[in-house]
């Protein structure tokens, strides 16, 4: 069952086209890893899907066959004001914000949802804490809780492993595996080596999008997709480095 269809999208900023003629269909229970070099348009694609950036061409078609059309979203780095007077439970509550609920106060059922999701994330003890005192990993859990509290049909994560220690990274991927039974997941990552063991399929984004119907991808396939990233094998440093040596290849 398709949730969203991205049709012939071109997008960018001002007069710079970053994405060109992108097509992608996200079905129920998909778990797509979006990979590609920095500046290749991964975040731009996310913004277009979220409706934060109006595409220059093409359309996004949402299949509204369910009442719940929420999108769960975990932004890239959190640049939110660390001194802002807002508590963990209020941040998670904001994940339940919707057109119907812009006015008025939240109900007990909403607060119960927040309580449950904080338990799921293992951060119940932080419920009433101000966001100011949280570590990077704790903040990431809070923001993930905010993303999933509304039981979205689709969860979009932009580089979820950026500020996170290794133990949380493992927990995170296990949690995503469980969540994937209920919702489709789109995950942007530069860390190809790690994500390929969790995602089901891969989308290579570098100006164009090449969809790869498997989670196993080889270096030569990446190159044929115009996607200059270095694959790493397990047992090495857990973070990939961009493959500079294949930047100047002939596909441009």
């Amino acid at each position, binding site marked *: 069952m398709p949730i969203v269809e991205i049709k012939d999208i071109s997008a960018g900023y001002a007069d710079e086209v970053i994405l060109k003629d992108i097509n992608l269909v996200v079905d129920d229970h998909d778990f797509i890893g979006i990979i590609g070099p920095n500046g290749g348009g991964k975040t731009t694609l996310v913004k277009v899907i979220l409706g934060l950036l109006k595409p220059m061409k093409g359309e996004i078609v949402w299949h509204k066959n369910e009442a719940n059309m929420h999108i769960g979203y975990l932004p890239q780095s959190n640049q*939110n004001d660390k001194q802002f007077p*807002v508590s963990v439970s*209020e941040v998670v509550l*904001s994940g339940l*914000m*919707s057109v119907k609920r812009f006015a008025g106060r939240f109900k007990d059922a909403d607060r119960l949802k927040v309580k449950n999701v904080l338990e799921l994330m293992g951060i119940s003890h932080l419920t009433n804490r101000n966001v100011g005192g949280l570590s990077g990993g704790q903040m990431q859990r809070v923001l993930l809780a905010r993303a999933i509290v509304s039981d979205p049909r689709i969860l979009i994560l932009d580089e979820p492993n950026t500020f996170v220690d290794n133990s949380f990274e493992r927990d995170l991927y296990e949690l995503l595996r469980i969540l994937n039974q209920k919702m489709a997941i789109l995950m942007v990552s530069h860390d190809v080596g790690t994500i390929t063991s969790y995602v089901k399929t891969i989308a290579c984004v570098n100006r164009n999008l090449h969809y790869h119907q498997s989670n196993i991808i080889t270096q030569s396939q990446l190159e044929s997709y115009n996607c200059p990233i270095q694959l790493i094998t397990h047992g090495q440093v857990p973070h990939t480095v961009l493959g500079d040596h294949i930047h100047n290849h002939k596909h441009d």
Partner: protein
Amino acid sequence: MIEQILELFDYRFFNNAMLAAILASIVCGIIGSYIVARRMVFISGGITHASFGGIGIAYFMGLNPVLGAAVFSVMAALGIEWISTKSNIREDSAIGILWSFGMAVGIIFIFITPGYAPNLMSYLFGNILTVSDTDLWMIGILAAVLIVTFTLFYHLILFVAFDEEYARSHKAPVNLIKYIMISLVAITIVLNIRLVGIILVISFLTIPQSTANILTKRFDYIILLSIAFGIMGSIGGLLISYFYNIPSGATIIFVFVLLFILTKLAKMSLVKIKIRKQIENLS
């Protein structure tokens, strides 16, 4: 002393001043908490000074200066908000330009207006003791508007302020909210200029809120506590200014800062006691 204070309530001007202090504390407590939380103090300073241009133009055209200031500062506020989202001029530079341009326009128009402008000083420094019934009505209506807005849309305002992009991804009307909020900031500033003046209005919007922020990190508590600190400081300052015959606006701000320092010291010693207890428990 108590008798002298009670006698004061026989005077209409004093009752008006007390009411003005309370209403100003309410509107500034609400809007100031928003300003402090969103780090909009500099923008607010810009709007405050830009409003002087409106006062000058209104003088020249023979209109009500508060009305002139309101129109001018709402336009300045919307302009700053628009520039920060649309154009590639840096926001803080835009504020600096509007800040000084407003003052310049005000000075030029007051200078070319025939005759002497006797109330000019009252706009720069304010005078809570000469507040009129019209002033009270206007600030009272603003207080009602702010209470209703913040009660109905508390979470929406808070969420948009905390994470604009996330709010947008939930289809929240982020731009509309920002334009409405900045207009409310501008109107709050203008209506308080008559009380404490252009030079001192920013303190009403920041000092009680910063004092409240020492004691709590919750947005709704910051609002309520800063209203309380606002009332304490402005009524305290009003009485001191009356008995020692010193300017009311400056005295109120002096009391605000005193309350801030005392609260900070109290908080610091509480934290020290807490740490000492924890160390004792460990050993």
